[in-house]
């Protein structure tokens, strides 16, 4: 073809338009940029062209952080909070209230949403991967509903694991140390003729917060292991490449988590067991000027609690004698509480096409069909399965209408039986002031379908025959979509030949009709119950900054900062309460890594969060925490190993989320061996 082009050229009859799609290699091919970001718009874009602030947490940063929990890595993104509701129940939130079950973030693992409808949140302990399996994490800091729909209401997290081909043949890891931590994982990566695969298995356990281990008394046998965790997970990720243009990926996994959850002074704790499995099939076909992706997955989660609350007479001022008086026909009995038996499933089928309309215009469009199923006698008040069908249609475009300007236009249309239809549009303009410096402005009008639980919850504590003793939570029966309007002004600059990156953002966010569950008066035992309603509004404004400096392979500095000012009112049992203190005003993290010799690395991370009152938790002081890590590389023939000494919280104890959650100094030793 290249010869044909030149023949035409020599004949002098070829037009420029005719050679636009030339077949020869040109300078454009040699200087083609390496796409960096695809989580912001679903398009492969350089960071300077996206309409949102994006933090990429690299594999190098993950290792240097010394983190033992995946959720804690999110602290390396400005404005993101990662907290321990209990020893092993972790939450992640951004620019929002931080309840026990935060649900305003979309979290994807290799393209599969891991949001669980039963608890309307992400169960971080059930992700099924080891922290060392992660290749990188893209964090979209701000509403990304135009690209990923409802769940990306206030941000999106895209976790990408290591491909089989990029993995050592065999990898063995073990971590031990404080809080009785015992983590083991093994990973084998094989390459057959045209199929590559990774099989991995992990087992983790720890005893949670030490302070919770103290006996609390009461008639029931208390235990010194009130927030223990034990999880076992298995995963297979395979890749079949039948041609240069086709990739077929299959991911399957299953596992179980056993958590102990502190409960009350009578019972002390109860056990919760998660059984999960998932299957995913993803086919990518490259086209001449784009690609087509078909992504199907199924998530299954079964939750089983053995929540024995205690005898009614022990839990309340009622005596065995007065119970039949207040509840005719009933006697004092052991009450069961919490979820007991919950099941959620998600089936998701998605088709997406990206293509270059011209050199200036890049488009992605797609559609998705999703079915969510939820059942729980306790949470819903009945045994019926709720099936909810959802449709999505989305389009995002990147239009470079001037060498220095590009516009991102996108919209997500969603339809479901809960709130009918709505649209979440976004427009962003990027100005390339200098080749290495960019300014950005974007406006997003995001909408979110309320979680199934918040629409249908109807929970009560009952006698064995179903007679209601106390209503816990219900709903107002009038659910509609939550709304967020966001204005962002951003700057991204590269200095010192790209060694230093500075990312700044100013934003205003106006959130309306957030679904929440304030207490309301009720004619029951305690006189109140929680009722889900679209009644919470707040306005936030703030500033975020990230500076990353990597002058050479020996040094790495990454500094993250967020300032947040929230204004809103929370109605609880009719009393308005300012929620401005429910977010931290200042949130900072600084990661510094230094490699003094090829086989040694020293790293530290400093975290600081200003004082705040956690939703569902307590009013806690500011947190300052310093983690240290020392790593030695070991080389034994074909084996390469890494021995790490990790210290979490070198300084004084601090309280995380709840007054009982004393985070003490923790010391871990992690050993990893790879066979190549």
């Amino acid at each position: 073809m290249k010869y044909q082009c030149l023949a035409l050229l020599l004949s002098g009859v070829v037009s420029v338009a005719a050679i636009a799609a030339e077949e020869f290699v040109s300078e454009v091919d040699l200087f083609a940029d390496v796409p960096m970001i695809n989580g912001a718009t679903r398009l492969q874009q350089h960071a300077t062209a996206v309409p949102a602030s994006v933090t990429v947490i690299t594999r190098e940063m993950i290792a240097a952080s010394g983190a033992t929990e995946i959720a804690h890595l999110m602290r390396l993104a400005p404005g993101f909070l990662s907290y321990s509701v209990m020893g092993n129940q972790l939450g992640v939130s951004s620019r929002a209230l931080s309840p026990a079950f935060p649900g305003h973030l979309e979290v994807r693992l290799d393209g599969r949403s891991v949001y669980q409808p039963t608890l309307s949140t992400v169960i971080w302990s059930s992700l099924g991967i080891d922290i060392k399996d992660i290749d990188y994490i893209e964090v979209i800091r701000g509403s990304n509903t135009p690209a990923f729909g409802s769940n990306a209401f206030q941000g999106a997290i895209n976790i990408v694991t290591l491909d089989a081909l990029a993995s050592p043949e065999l990898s063995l890891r073990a971590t031990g140390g404080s809080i009785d931590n015992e983590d083991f994982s093994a990973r084998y990566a094989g390459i057959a003729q045209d199929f590559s695969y990774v099989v991995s298995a992990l087992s983790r356990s720890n005893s949670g917060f030490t302070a919770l281990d103290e006996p609390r008394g009461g008639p029931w046998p208390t235990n010194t292991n009130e927030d223990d965790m034990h999880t076992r997970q298995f995963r297979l990720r395979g890749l079949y490449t039948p041609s240069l243009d086709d990739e077929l990926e299959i991911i399957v996994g299953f596992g179980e988590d056993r958590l102990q959850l502190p409960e009350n002074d009578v019972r002390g704790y109860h056990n919760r067991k998660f059984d999960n499995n998932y299957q995913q099939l993803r086919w990518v076909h490259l086209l001449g000027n784009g690609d087509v992706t078909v992504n199907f997955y199924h998530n299954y989660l079964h939750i089983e609690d053995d929540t024995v609350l205690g005898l009614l007479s022990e839990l309340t001022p009622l005596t065995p004698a007065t119970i039949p008086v207040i509840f005719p026909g009933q006697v004092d009995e052991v009450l069961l509480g919490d979820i007991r038996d919950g099941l959620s499933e998600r089936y998701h089928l998605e088709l997406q096409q990206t293509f270059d309309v011209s050199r200036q215009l890049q488009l992605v469009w797609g559609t998705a069909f999703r079915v969510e199923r939820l059942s729980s006698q306790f949470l819903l008040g009945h045994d019926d399965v709720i099936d909810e069908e959802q449709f999505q249609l989305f389009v995002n475009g990147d239009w470079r209408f001037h060498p220095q300007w590009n516009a991102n236009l996108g919209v997500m249309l969603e339809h479901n039986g809960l709130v009918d239809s709505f649209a979440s549009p976004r427009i962003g303009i990027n100005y390339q002031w200098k080749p290495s410096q960019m300014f950005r402005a974007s406006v997003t009008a995001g909408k979110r379908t309320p979680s199934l639980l918040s629409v249908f919850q109807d929970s009560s504590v009952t006698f064995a025959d179903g007679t209601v003793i106390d209503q816990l939570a219900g709903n107002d029966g009038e659910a509609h979509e939550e709304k967020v309007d966001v204005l962002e002004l951003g700057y991204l600059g590269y200095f010192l030949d790209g060694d230093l990156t500075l990312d700044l953002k100013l934003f205003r966010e106006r959130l309306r009709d957030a679904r929440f569950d304030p207490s309301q008066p009720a004619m029951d035992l305690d006189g109140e119950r929680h009722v889900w309603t679209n009644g919470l509004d707040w306005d936030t404004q703030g500033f975020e900054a990230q500076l990353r400096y990597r002058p050479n392979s020996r040094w790495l500095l990454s500094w993250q900062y967020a300032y947040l000012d929230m204004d809103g009112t929370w109605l609880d049992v009719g009393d308005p309460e300012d929620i401005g203190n429910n977010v931290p005003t200042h949130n900072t993290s600084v990661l510094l890594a230094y490699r003094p010799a090829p086989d040694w690395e020293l790293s530290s991370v400093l975290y600081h969060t200003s004082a705040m009152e956690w939703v569902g938790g307590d009013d806690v002081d500011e947190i300052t925490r310093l983690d240290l890590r020392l790593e030695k590389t070991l080389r034994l023939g074909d084996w390469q190993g890494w021995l790490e000494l990790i210290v979490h919280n070198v300084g004084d104890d601090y309280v995380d989320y709840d007054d009982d959650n004393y985070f003490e100094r923790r010391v871990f030793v992690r050993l990893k061996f790879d066979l190549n």
Partner: protein
Amino acid sequence: MVRILNRTPMILVCLLALWATSVPAKTDIVVLVSSDTKPYQDVVAGIRSGLASKKQQYSLTITTLAGLQAGEQALPPEHTLLLTVGTRATRYALDKKVSDTIFATFVTRSSLLPEPAFGNEFPKQLKGALVLDQPAERVVALSRLVRPKMQKLGFVVNGSAPNRQDEFSDAALKTGLQFSTATLFEDSNPIADLKAIFSSSDVFVVVPDKARFNSKIAKWVLFLSYRHRVPVIGYSKKYTDAGALVSLFSNPEQIGRDTGERVREWLTDRRRLFFSPRLLSPRYFTLTVNDKVVDSLALEIDSAEQLKQRLMDKPQFDTADSEDDPELLLRSD
């Protein structure tokens, strides 16, 4: 006295001629760039620095292809040389025959290769070109430097439009190396084919091809490099950042400076109608080394600067055409 007066006009003419020869003559060069974006701007900046000379003044008129096509700009009809920067500008200039004296730069060899069926002839207007492609001999020499005991070089070729396959295999054979090639077609299984090459190679060289082909194979190449512990030689800093051991390339400023110097040399000594050879390889180049990969592969190699110096100490690979150019014509004057 009278004789002196009589000779005054002659003396004045001589003085004037002397003065005229002492003032550098101005040479008009028109630069036609494919785009006004950063890489092309850097090339133009490099051209200016390469042309700088005390003996000769050059007048540069910068024109963009977009401006020309939109009618907002026009090529000055009188010029000594038209310098086209980038493939699109070069193709436009040759297609429209806008000048009789064209020098192309910031282009690839692939975009300029003449069709054998037409006698291997370059267009007459094209006096010469500086291509971006690194000479295969330089790349092979680099592979020797990073792995001195290597015996086999591996590389991949786009089966749909093979690019520089013979050049690299010849360069390998000349230095006593064996080579193995994976030729990938649309229906090839990239992992299976590349795995076979990586299994039997000591160093893998990525020969730049079409961007789409490059991006299709980059992931597999870098993954398999890690898996088989075979270092990869890439062609851009981004390839190094992504996981290649070392990359060899000429950046836009280097290409521009090289272009300016070569054009200045050619214009100063116009005995030849064409540049010799017609397709010139870049004299200036950059090396980037990924220290993480060096550590990961447990290699002991020189720093980027030391490697560059050692390459420069070797014979210069100044030609992109290994054979004599039949188009070389001596100027009649």
